[in-house]
C-alpha cells in the first residue's frame, strides 16, 4: 500500500469512527455513559461547581441550599426564569446544544412549556428523573397532578417547585365595609362588579392586563383554546361558547372599570390601583407576590375564597398560572450534586415551608407551608381549606405545548384591548394567532 493509500484509508476510518461515536462521552464504564442506571447517557462525572440557573425569586432557594450545605460548590446565575414567553432558557440551550458545552446543571423555569421541547431527541437537554435517577418515593411525595407539566409519555423531566392553581383573593375588610358577600360563581362575581361600579367606583375586582389573564379566566372557564392532544397535535377552539362567556364577562367588567387592564407588576398598578383591590381571581402565589409584595396590603385584610365556578359547572375547575419547575441537565458532569440540589429545594422544609412564596408542589411541605402562612397572622380567616381544595381542581383540558400561549395572548389580545377593542371581538384573532404559532412549531392543528 502506498503512503497515499494508507493516508486515504486512515482518513476514511477516522471519518467513519467519528460518525459512529455515541452522543455524550465516549468512555463507558458500568455506571456511566450509555449504560448508566439513570436511563440516559451520562457525561463523565467530575468534581467542580454546580451551575444553577434561577430567577430572582428562586435565588432564595439556591442561597438556602448553600447555607444548609456550606461545603457545596455552587455557581448561581440569575436569569428571567423563562417567564412571559421570553424563551431565554430555550434560546440558550439551543446555543449550548450547537456548541456542545455550557449547559447549566440545574435550571429553574416559571413556564410549563419546557418539557415539550427539551425532552425531544433533537435537544435532549433535560434528564429523565423517574428512570432510576431519583427515588420513586421522592416523586410520589408530590401532589397529585403536580408533575403533569413535567411529564411526556410517562417520563418525568422535572420537579415542580410550586403549584399555581387559581383561587379568589378578596379584601375582607373592604367587603365587610361595603356590605358585600363573597361570590361563589362567575355570574355572581360579574353581578357584584356592576354593583361595585355603581356604588364604589374606582375599586377593582380583577385584573386582565397580564399575559396570564387567559390562564385565570379562559382556563377556568374550560375554554378549549389550547388542547394538546399529542406530541405534535393541538386542538384550538378559541371562539367556543366557553371562551366567549369568559370574554364577555371580561368585556362587561372592563367597560364598567371594575376589571383593571394594567399589568399587576407594572409601575402603574401599585401606584394607581394598589389600594383599590376588592377582589382578585388569581393563582395562590398572588398572596405573597402581589398582596405582601407589590401592593403591600396591611395585615388582617386579605382572605381567600374557593375558586369561582360557572353556574353550570358542578364544582369549580381552575386554571394554573405557571408553577415553577426544576430541571436537571442530562449533560451534567455533577449528577449527584444536582440530584441533591433539586431534591432539597423542592422537598426540604427549610426552603419550601419556611421561605417559598408559593404553595409547594411537594405535599408534606405544602401542609407546613399553609400552617406557617396561617400562623403568620397576615391573613383574614382560613386560607388553607380553599387553597388545598383548588389544588386538585385544575382543569386538565389546557395543555402545555412547545410554544407559550401566554405570549400569543400578550401580543395579540392586549394591544387590541389597549386600543379599546373588546376581548370578544379579539377571539378570532387569538384563534388565528395560536394556529399560526402552532404551525410554526410543526403542530397539526385541529379547529
Amino acid at each position, binding site marked *: 500500500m502506498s503512503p497515499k493509500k494508507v493516508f486515504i484509508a486512515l482518513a476514511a476510518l477516522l471519518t467513519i469512527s467519528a460518525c459512529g461515536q455515541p452522543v455524550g462521552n465516549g468512555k463507558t464504564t458500568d455506571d456511566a455513559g450509555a449504560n448508566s442506571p439513570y436511563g440516559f447517557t451520562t457525561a463523565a462525572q467530575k468534581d467542580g461547581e454546580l451551575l444553577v440557573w434561577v430567577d430572582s425569586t428562586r435565588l432564595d432557594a439556591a442561597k438556602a441550599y448553600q447555607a444548609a450545605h456550606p461545603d457545596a460548590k455552587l455557581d448561581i446565575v440569575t436569569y428571567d426564569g423563562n417567564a412571559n*414567553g421570553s424563551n431565554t432558557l430555550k434560546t440558550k440551550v439551543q446555543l449550548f446544544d450547537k456548541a456542545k458545552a455550557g449547559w447549566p446543571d440545574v435550571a429553574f423555569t416559571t413556564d410549563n412549556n419546557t418539557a415539550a421541547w427539551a425532552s425531544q431527541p433533537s435537544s435532549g437537554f433535560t434528564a429523565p428523573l423517574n428512570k432510576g435517577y431519583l427515588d420513586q418515593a421522592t416523586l410520589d411525595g408530590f401532589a397529585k397532578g403536580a408533575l403533569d407539566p413535567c411529564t411526556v409519555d410517562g417520563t418525568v423531566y422535572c420537579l415542580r417547585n410550586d403549584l399555581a392553581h387559581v383561587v379568589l383573593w378578596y379584601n375582607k375588610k373592604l367587603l365587610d365595609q361595603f356590605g358585600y358577600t363573597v361570590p361563589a360563581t362567575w355570574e355572581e362575581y360579574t353581578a357584584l362588579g356592576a354593583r361595585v361600579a355603581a356604588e364604589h367606583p374606582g375599586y377593582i375586582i380583577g385584573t386582565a392586563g397580564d399575559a396570564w389573564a387567559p390562564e385565570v379566566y379562559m382556563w377556568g372557564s374550560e375554554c378549549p383554546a389550547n388542547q394538546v392532544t399529542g406530541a405534535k397535535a393541538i386542538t384550538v377552539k378559541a371562539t367556543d361558547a366557553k371562551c366567549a362567556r369568559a370574554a364577555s364577562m371580561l368585556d362587561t367588567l372592563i367597560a364598567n372599570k371594575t376589571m383593571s387592564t394594567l399589568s399587576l407588576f407594572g409601575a402603574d398598578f401599585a401606584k394607581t390601583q394598589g389600594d383599590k383591590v376588592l377582589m382578585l381571581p388569581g393563582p395562590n402565589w398572588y398572596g405573597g407576590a402581589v398582596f405582601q409584595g407589590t401592593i403591600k396590603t396591611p395585615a388582617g385584610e386579605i382572605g381567600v375564597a374557593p375558586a369561582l365556578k360557572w353556574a353550570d359547572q358542578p364544582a369549580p375547575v381552575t386554571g394554573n398560572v405557571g408553577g415553577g419547575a426544576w430541571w436537571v441537565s442530562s449533560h451534567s458532569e455533577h449528577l449527584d450534586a444536582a440530584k441533591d440540589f433539586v431534591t432539597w429545594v423542592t422537598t426540604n422544609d427549610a426552603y419550601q415551608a419556611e421561605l417559598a412564596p408559593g404553595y409547594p408542589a411537594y405535599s408534606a411541605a405544602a401542609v407546613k407551608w399553609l400552617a406557617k402562612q396561617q400562623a403568620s397572622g397576615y391573613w383574614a380567616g382560613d386560607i388553607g381549606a380553599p387553597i388545598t381544595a383548588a389544588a386538585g381542581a385544575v382543569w386538565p383540558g389546557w395543555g402545555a405545548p412547545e410554544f407559550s400561549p401566554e405570549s400569543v395572548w400578550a401580543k395579540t389580545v392586549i394591544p387590541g384591548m389597549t386600543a379599546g377593542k373588546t376581548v370578544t371581538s379579539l377571539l378570532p384573532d387569538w384563534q388565528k394567532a395560536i394556529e399560526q404559532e402552532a404551525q410554526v412549531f410543526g403542530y397539526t392543528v385541529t379547529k
Partner: protein
Amino acid sequence: MRSVTSGGRRFGPAPGHLFVSGYVVLLVAFGIGPALYALYLAFTTNMGYWAGIDNFTKTFADFRFLPAVGHVAAYLVLWLVSLTVLVVTLALVVHSVRNRVAGSALRFLYYIPGALAGASSVLLWLFVLDPSVSPVAWLLSAFDLQTFNQVIAPGNLPLIFTVIAFWTGAGSWIVVLYGALNTIPHEVIEAARMDGASALTTALRVQLPMLRKWIAYMLILSLAGGTQLFVEPQLVSQASFGVVGTDYSVNQLAYLYAFNQNDFNGSAALSIILLIFSVACAALFVARGRLFDVD
C-alpha cells in the same frame, strides 16, 4: 550601505497594507467568514444536504415574515429621512456658530448620548416612555398616552425606535459632518459670500454638494444598522411583558428561527436576504453619492 529601495519602491509590505491588515483580519473573522457560513447554511438542510431555495421559500411563507419586513421598512424610512435632514441641518447650524466655546459645547452635547452603549440607552428610554415614571409624562399625556401599553401601541413603534436611534446615533454623525464641513476650503465659502450668496444659499449650493459623500457614507452605515433592528424591539418586548412580540423585526425573526425553532438554516436564509438588501442599497448610495470618485 544596504539598498532597501528599488526604483523608488520599498520591498515588503507598504505601510498602508500594514495599517489595514488589522481591519482585514477582523473583517474576515467576523464579517466574511460568518457570511460565507450563513450562505452555506442557507442552501443546505439541517443534515447538510443541498436544499436549493427551500429555506428561502419557507421563510417567505412564514406568517411573521411580511409584517416584520413592513415594520423594518417603516422604521427605515422614518429614520433615514429624519437622520439626513436633522443631522445635516444641525451640523450646518453648529458650523455657523461663530463663538468657539458655544460651538464646542454644542458638539459635546450632541455627542454625549452616543457614548452610552446601545442596550443601556434603550433601557433609559424605557423609563422615559413609561408615563408612570417618565420625567416627560406631561408630554406623553398631551398625546393622550396614559399607560406604557398605549405608548407602545403597534402604530407608534417605528416612531419610537426612530427617536431612540436618533438620540443615540445622530450625535456622532453631527460631529462627523461638522468635521467634513471644516474640510471645505475657506476660500470657497468666502468666494460665495463675495458673490452675494446668503447663508442659506451657501449651505444649499456650496456646502451640501460638497457633503454628498459624507451623507452617502452616513446613510450606508445607518441603513446597515437599521435593517438589523434588534435590541430596541427585543428590550421593549421584555419590558412590556410580551405585548410587543419578539418577532417584530426581521433580525428578531432570524433569532427566533435559530434559537426558538432550532432552524439555523432558515435563520441563515433570513440573514442572507438582509445582506443582499443592505449591499444593494449600499451600492446605490455609493453610486449616487459618488463615494469613491476622486476629486
